[in-house]
């Protein structure tokens, strides 16, 4: 059909766009309503689930980590919202399932981790193993009447708490040295050589320049430079009472 020129074409085009926009509007409206209905359906399912299993989620570490793992896989961050944020103010529905306790559990755990890292900073330079944090928290728990059989704080809980600190630009980072998870509470990253030296220390318990040269094939000055840097950051302590000077790491004590 030859394109009609002139006024007829003009209003034809207007008409087309008109229909298209109304069509688009209806599509959007149906889509929107479907989304909201689905949300409310999901919310109902959630509340039934929470009445049944909420206690599990709150105090069983295995369940908690399984729930958190699934959330991350489908892109949900239940810890994003404060536990007391009312729904109409952008609170998340997960608080119903988790209840303020679980959010508070992770946040309170994170508060305690921040405090432990800060207290031990001068001792270990700001690098501490997750297991040591766990044992310190349990010891503290006992001393504050926690009865020692504390809500089992698993390493996974600790790692997740530290992860949720990320938005605070805190420089709190979970890094892996060798096989153990460590928490670094100082902004400065470890370069490859430094991490390697700490790894060796984890295996042997200490390190000397000779050991580094033999095992890693580094030339002595390079090894010395790396060790001096680690000393400057207070990650290593020096021991000069037995033959060759040896370097130990309080964080892998």
């Amino acid at each position, binding site marked *: 059909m030859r394109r009609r020129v002139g006024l007829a074409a003009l209003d034809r085009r207007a008409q087309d766009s008109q229909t298209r926009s109304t069509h688009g509007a209806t599509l959007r409206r149906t889509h929107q309503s479907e989304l909201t209905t689905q949300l409310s359906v999901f919310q109902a399912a959630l509340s039934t689930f929470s009445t049944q299993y909420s206690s599990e989620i709150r105090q069983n570490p295995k369940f908690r980590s399984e729930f958190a793992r699934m959330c991350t896989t489908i892109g949900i961050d239940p810890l994003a919202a404060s536990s007391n944020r009312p729904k109409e103010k952008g609170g998340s529905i997960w608080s119903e399932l988790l209840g303020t306790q679980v959010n508070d559990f992770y946040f309170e755990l994170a508060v305690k981790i921040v405090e432990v890292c800060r207290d031990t900073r*001068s001792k270990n330079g700001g690098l501490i193993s997750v297991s040591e944090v766990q044992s310190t928290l349990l010891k503290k728990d006992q001393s504050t009447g926690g009865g020692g059989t504390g809500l089992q704080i698993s390493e996974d809980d600790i790692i997740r708490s530290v992860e949720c600190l990320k938005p605070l630009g805190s420089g709190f980072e979970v890094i892996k040295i060798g096989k153990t998870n460590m928490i670094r509470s100082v902004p400065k990253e470890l370069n490859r050589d430094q991490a390697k030296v700490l790894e060796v220390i984890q295996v042997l*318990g*200490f390190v000397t320049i000779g050991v580094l040269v033999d095992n890693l094939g580094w030339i002595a000055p390079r090894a010395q430079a790396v060790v001096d840097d680690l000393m400057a950051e207070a990650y290593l*302590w*020096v021991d*000069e*009472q037995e033959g060759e000077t*040896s370097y*130990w790491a309080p964080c892998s*004590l």
Partner: protein
Amino acid sequence: MANLKDKSALPAYYPEFYTFPPFYTRQPNAASWSSQLSQWRSFILAYCRAHKLWRLNLADTMETDLFYNKSINRKLPLPTIREVVDDLVKSSNAEWLSSEKSIAYIYWRTPEDFASQIYSWIDETGQKGTVLTLLELTEGDNTTQQEWYGMDQTMLVKCLNVLVKKGQAQVFSVGDDKGVKVW
């Protein structure tokens, strides 16, 4: 090497780093040294308290458990010990006997605390107003339970001087011995 972590065999007041070899080398890094210093300070005070040591003779104690960990064959060198005791002196937890810094009084409890303890003990035992010789106080059989039992004479005088300054006591010499009257 004994497992570094297993400190269960050691008494509670031993520092966490007692079996950590570098603990016996004065750390050059400022942050590490501040944590090392504070651990050594509290260890010395706790050790003296546990062993009722009023004076710390550096030479003698060099070989004791305080400064020498036989299991890992590590010893805190003398200059570092002096540095720690100097720090204790700064916070008035210690006092050098003489300038060549070989023996020091260790106040694991400050003279003021001792003074008030002695005062309340004398008060309870109703010996206010009576004259007591210093020996009675430190070696008398009825003070065996007190914390200051066996305290060094010169140190005892220091504590009593606190009471004198407060006007609650008077120290005077009885023959070649010394006596005190508390009211």
